[in-house]
């Protein structure tokens, strides 16, 4: 017997989870299948965490429409889901007269897209927003912002889960068969699912899912962006987002500094087409370039301020020769009834996610009558942000009631034992060390787990019965340990 669902979503990235969460408002049996051991392990957690205003996209495109809509939905969504978000605004900087023309074009484009509050600033006005910034003018977009990308992805999934969506982590789709009414989906671990509606939100692997259904017209070209993460010591040296004015045919928006909602600064991303859909390595040439750029953009940067590197892949539909962008593909396939297909959701997919959720809901409604659930809970329980970010009084109060709030496990990020326990007992049942990292921020600080990882391992061993082979970083074979010492 296989499980039957009304809707099955392939891919638990931010897009898949936003769709799941939106559909969980209705009386539907929904499943999300994900190849990785946790949600959001692909591009959703490996990006700048920027909320785009919508100035960069051609009017009338899905990217323009969904971005502006997603941007405005995000504030309320993050309030409900307790996800950190900050509309800090963005300066797009002109260095010369040509760039000023670009800014004017972007402003007109943004206004056509419905982006509110756009202003061209002269150098003085620009430096009021961000002192020391070089350039002759800037386009100010107040609705640009920052968000915790994996925080949002996890929160969407947890809220969807609360509302009845089932998550199948570690389930990689290997084949799909069309049935008279719907689909049979097989996953690598021998699980079979049947579903009436199948949604492809597989991101970098969305073209592969298409091919499983005989749809051959799409191809994803992974384009890697590398980043360096800077120590929180530098928090405050950047108050708004600062981007260079875009140039023709750039595959991304250029290397820049981005502040994160957690107080780190990112340098990146680079642009490099690669063949492997799964190669998130950092490379020496680009690391050297990012370091150089970093020192130029932030003169107070010292070599000990780099705490980690990471890279992520853009699911581009344009080949290295074509460059540039193609619009998102979001379609309810007429030739494969019941198949809703999303291909090439690269930047600004994070910003668009809530709007994509609504758009897909409408597509589902064309095939299944949707009936709202009275039991839908829109709020995620818990705390917004970390315990250490709460006001001192409130922290003192909580710590006096619960000793686990008094014990700091990760000293760099000041993560309490209570937060570690919450992360370990996450509703989705993710059991990886990376899962604890993304939920509690433990090991994400400047010592990168040197001090707290042994303590976390001790907690998992003693209080949760983990055996040595249960300790995995993120994937099944990513074992931390090889045995006992003699």
């Amino acid at each position: 017997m296989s499980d039957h669902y009304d809707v099955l979503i392939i891919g638990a990235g931010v897009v898949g989870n936003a769709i799941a969460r939106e559909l969980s408002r209705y009386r539907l049996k929904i499943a999300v299948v994900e190849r990785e051991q946790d949600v959001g392990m692909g591009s959703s957690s490996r990006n700048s965490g920027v909320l785009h205003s919508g100035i960069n996209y051609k009017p009338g495109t899905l990217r323009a429409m969904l971005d502006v809509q997603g941007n405005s939905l995000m504030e309320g969504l993050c309030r409900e889901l307790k996800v950190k978000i900050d509309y800090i605004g963005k300066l797009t900087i002109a260095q010369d007269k040509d760039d000023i023309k670009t800014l004017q074009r972007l402003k007109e484009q943004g206004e056509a897209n419905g982006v509110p509050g756009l202003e061209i600033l002269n150098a003085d006005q620009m430096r009021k927003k961000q002192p020391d910034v070089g350039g002759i003018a800037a386009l100010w977009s107040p609705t640009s912002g920052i968000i915790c990308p994996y925080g949002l992805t996890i929160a969407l999934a947890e809220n969807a889960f609360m509302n009845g969506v089932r998550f199948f982590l570690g389930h990689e789709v290997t084949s799909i068969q069309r049935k008279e009414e719907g689909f049979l989906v097989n996953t690598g671990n021998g699980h079979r699912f049947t579903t009436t509606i199948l949604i492809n939100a597989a991101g970098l692997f969305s073209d592969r899912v298409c091919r499983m259904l005989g749809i051959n017209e799409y191809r994803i070209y992974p384009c890697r962006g590398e980043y360096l993460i800077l120590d929180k010591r530098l928090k405050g040296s950047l108050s708004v987002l600062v981007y260079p004015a875009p140039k023709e045919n750039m595959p991304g928006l250029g290397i820049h500094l981005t502040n994160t909602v957690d107080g780190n600064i990112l340098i990146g991303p680079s642009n490099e087409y690669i063949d492997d859909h799964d190669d998130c390595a950092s490379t020496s040439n680009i690391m050297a370039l990012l370091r150089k750029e970093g020192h130029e953009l932030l003169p107070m940067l010292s070599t000990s301020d780099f705490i980690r590197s990471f890279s992520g892949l853009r699911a581009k539909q344009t080949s290295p020769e074509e460059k540039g962008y193609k619009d998102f593909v979001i379609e309810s396939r007429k030739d494969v009834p019941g198949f809703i297909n999303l291909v090439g959701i690269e930047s600004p997919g994070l910003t668009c996610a809530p709007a994509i959720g609504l758009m897909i809901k409408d597509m589902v409604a064309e095939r299944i009558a949707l009936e709202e659930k009275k039991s839908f809970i829109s709020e995620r329980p818990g705390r917004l942000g970390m315990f250490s970010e709460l006001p001192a009084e409130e922290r003192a109060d909580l710590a006096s009631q619960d000793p686990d709030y008094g014990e700091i496990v990760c000293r760099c990020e000041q993560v309490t034992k209570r937060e570690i326990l919450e992360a370990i007992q996450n509703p989705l049942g993710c059991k990886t060390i990376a899962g604890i990292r993304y939920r509690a921020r433990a090991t994400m600080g400047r010592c990168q787990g040197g001090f707290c990882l042994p303590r976390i391992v001790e907690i998992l061993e003693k209080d949760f019965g983990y055996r040595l082979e249960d300790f995995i970083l993120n994937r099944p074979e990513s074992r931390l340990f090889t045995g006992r010492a003699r």
Partner: protein
Amino acid sequence: MQTLKHDLVVIGGGPAGLAAAIAAKEAGCDDVLLIERDRRLGGILNQCIHDGFGLHRFGKALTGPEYAQHFIDRLDALAIQRMLGTIVLSMEGGHVLHISSKTGFRRISAGAVILGMGCRERTAGAICLPGTRPAGIYTAGAAQTFINLQNIMIGKRIVILGSGDIGLIMARRLTLEGAEVEAVFEILPYASGLPRNIQQCLNDYGIPLYLSTSVIDIHGKERVTGVTVAEIGPDRRPVPGTERHVACDTLLLSVGLIPENELTRGADILIESRTSGAYVDDAFMTSRPGVFSCGNVLHVHDLVDYVSEEAETVGRNTAAFLKGDMRPAESHIDIKPGNGVGYVLPQRVGGEKDFVLSLRVSEPFRNRAVLVREGKRKVKRKKMVRLHPAEMIRMNVKVDKIQDAMSLEVSVE
């Protein structure tokens, strides 16, 4: 919130904090509180189960826990108050400490504070190591914790990057535990660890050390499967054609230590970029009156014996400060590192007392002298056969030699 008051608070129960607290109490400061974030005293010494500690101080080779126990026993005998499992979250103005423990949050107002927080290890991110980020990349100290304190093996086939002392110690330790240590690679043309550790931990076990060689790529998507290493030229770039693959399941990093001065920075205490520790005078007082610093949080030491010695000086100084016996110097003499010197401590002296200079050279030298001078005038000269960045150099300077000096420079001649 409860506010406690103490004359002296020592932050950190490792070798520096222990020795400082004991010395302060012995010098007449009755109200000493020692705060330690771990659940036991001793700091990193607890995981250092190898011997070699205490050769200078006790004239015998002790293990880390044995060395620590000497001080813990004395701390007990003196009935010095302590808070374990307690972390200092912030240091308002240097003298009001916000602490957190299982018993909740508290505030402590301290007459004086001694910083003894130690250091942390430099990570793959901090040295911008390229490659993938699979499981199996550990700093040497974290690996030491797992093996020695938690009885967990972190790998079977090991490559070590960096020849710092902890890496060398772990090369031997892992070998004894049955792992194969392929090699130690060091980017510099000389080893960073002590010569005795090169001999006892590598040479004695046939583990090769490759100098001017570094890891330039890490392979593996789930667990480490290998690394690419290459010779590094004088331009600090890989020499083309020298790349080779080394299969391994673990990459251990021993690439330097960074003093943990986040609390210090948070209290707006001046930090010196060469040591990454506080800027101190000859009493080891920081830029905030009444706040002192010692041990590896001040500068990374080579031997724990010297940490204890320095911390004892600081303990006595702090007791004198609290008694009002330490009057601020009328003027200061700045001390600056010159040619061939990586850093020198203290950064300034009052010029009223003899003092000890601690320094490290920036590269290895043979048959040279360390020279302390004021302008062209020689103040002190110490001839040495072997000068090595791995070894701290200490020199006593007599106060009568620096009368009327404005600044001193310490260099390799």
